[in-house]
């Protein structure tokens, strides 16, 4: 892909957008770049559609990274996934099968305004950058703003809190744009994967309540096999299970919304590590983290292609 583009370092929003434009031009048979809307500050919300145009109708997988601005390893993984797909499509039978039978919608940076702000102003910024009329705080937690049990347990109504759910569901243009796209394509999209950090977990619904999803056996086995595939790389263990009991209860999350809207496999990855570096995972760990996560994502994708 982009000559000299280094996938083992973190990139600014501008560099990532240049990278997407380059791929769109250079790999037009496998990559199609489009925007699902504009952010609060007016930046385009780019998505890469990845896959061989082998037949008119294909199922799809949605992958987003960077919902929380400070979790830089997320966008690094989205870029890594695209690189691996393009580089191994010809040589890896599994990847060839995946790109022939599926489309992947990859959103490398969901929260573009927040990510840019974490590069230029506050490395530990989490939320979007929308302004609040009554308080002097910015931003909404883009993973508490979805229309599913909105602003219930595990979200805050206070605009200055890190888990502020927003003035109303889908108040954030970024959330509204992606929700609109996923709603429009929900019959095509069979899996929703969202990448966060840090905790080393693979989570599935529900976040907003302690209950078991109807297709628990299929989702649980996919998660079990995925974390085992991940661990096979370097022995790194990921916990897995329903988000509410594995991490904590939270309402208004994208994963719960995707599941509620008919996407049968919805996962949230909490990538490395468990706190030694936290959000400051060094660049030297990008490669092992992304390599092991690739195994998990390929495992989930191939599970999708089989009947469960």
């Amino acid at each position, binding site marked *: 892909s982009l000559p000299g583009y*280094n996938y*083992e*370092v*973190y990139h600014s929003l501008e560099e990532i957008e240049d990278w997407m434009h380059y791929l769109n031009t250079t790999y037009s048979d496998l990559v199609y770049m489009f925007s699902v809307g504009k952010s609060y500050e007016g930046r385009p919300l780019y998505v890469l559609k990845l896959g061989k145009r082998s037949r008119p109708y294909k199922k799809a997988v949605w992958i987003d990274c960077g919902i929380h601005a400070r979790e830089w390893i997320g966008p690094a993984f989205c870029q890594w996934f695209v690189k691996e797909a393009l580089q191994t499509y010809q040589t890896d039978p599994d990847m060839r099968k995946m790109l022939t039978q599926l489309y992947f919608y990859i959103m490398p940076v969901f929260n573009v305004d927040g990510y840019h702000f*974490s*590069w*230029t*102003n*506050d*490395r*530990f910024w*989490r939320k979007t950058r929308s302004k609040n009329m009554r308080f002097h705080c910015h931003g909404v*937690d883009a993973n508490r703003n979805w229309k599913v049990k909105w602003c219930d347990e*595990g979200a*805050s109504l206070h605009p*200055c*809190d*890190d*888990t502020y759910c927003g003035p109303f569901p889908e108040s954030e243009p970024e959330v509204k744009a992606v929700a609109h796209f996923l709603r429009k394509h929900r019959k095509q999209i069979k899996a929703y994967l969202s990448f966060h950090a*840090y*905790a080393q977990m693979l989570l599935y619904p529900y976040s907003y309540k302690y209950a078991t999803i109807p297709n628990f056996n299929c989702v649980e086995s996919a998660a079990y096999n995925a974390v085992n595939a991940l661990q096979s790389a370097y022995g790194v263990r990921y916990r897995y299970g329903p988000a509410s009991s594995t*991490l*904590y*209860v*939270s309402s208004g999350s994208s994963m719960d919304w995707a599941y509620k809207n008919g996407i049968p496999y919805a996962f949230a990855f909490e990538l490395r590590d468990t*706190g*030694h*570096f*936290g*959000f*400051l*995972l*060094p*660049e*030297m760990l990008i490669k092992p983290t992304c390599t092991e996560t690739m195994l998990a994502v390929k495992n989930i994708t191939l599970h999708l292609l089989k009947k469960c």
Partner: protein
Amino acid sequence: STLGAFLEHDKLIRVVPESERETQILRAAFNRLKVDLWQPSSPFHIVEGAFADVRVPQNATRSLLPFLQQANIQYTILISDLQQAIENQTAGRSHRSRR
């Protein structure tokens, strides 16, 4: 630093509440001090037996850490200088570019 956030001597500490009493003390303290909680995402989610990672600005170090000691709540310092850790995060790059 290009990142603007002046984090000299900001620390990342980890606390693991060992009782309901400690859990309530930490929730109240972190709510009042408006600290930057890294894990979990809000004080509401702090529970007994589970770790909480919190970024403590230099000015709050002098109040929060003694407070934890007085409350007899154990803590460990995960990162003692966040500014340095930010620079270390991309240290490889500068090293690589020098090469």
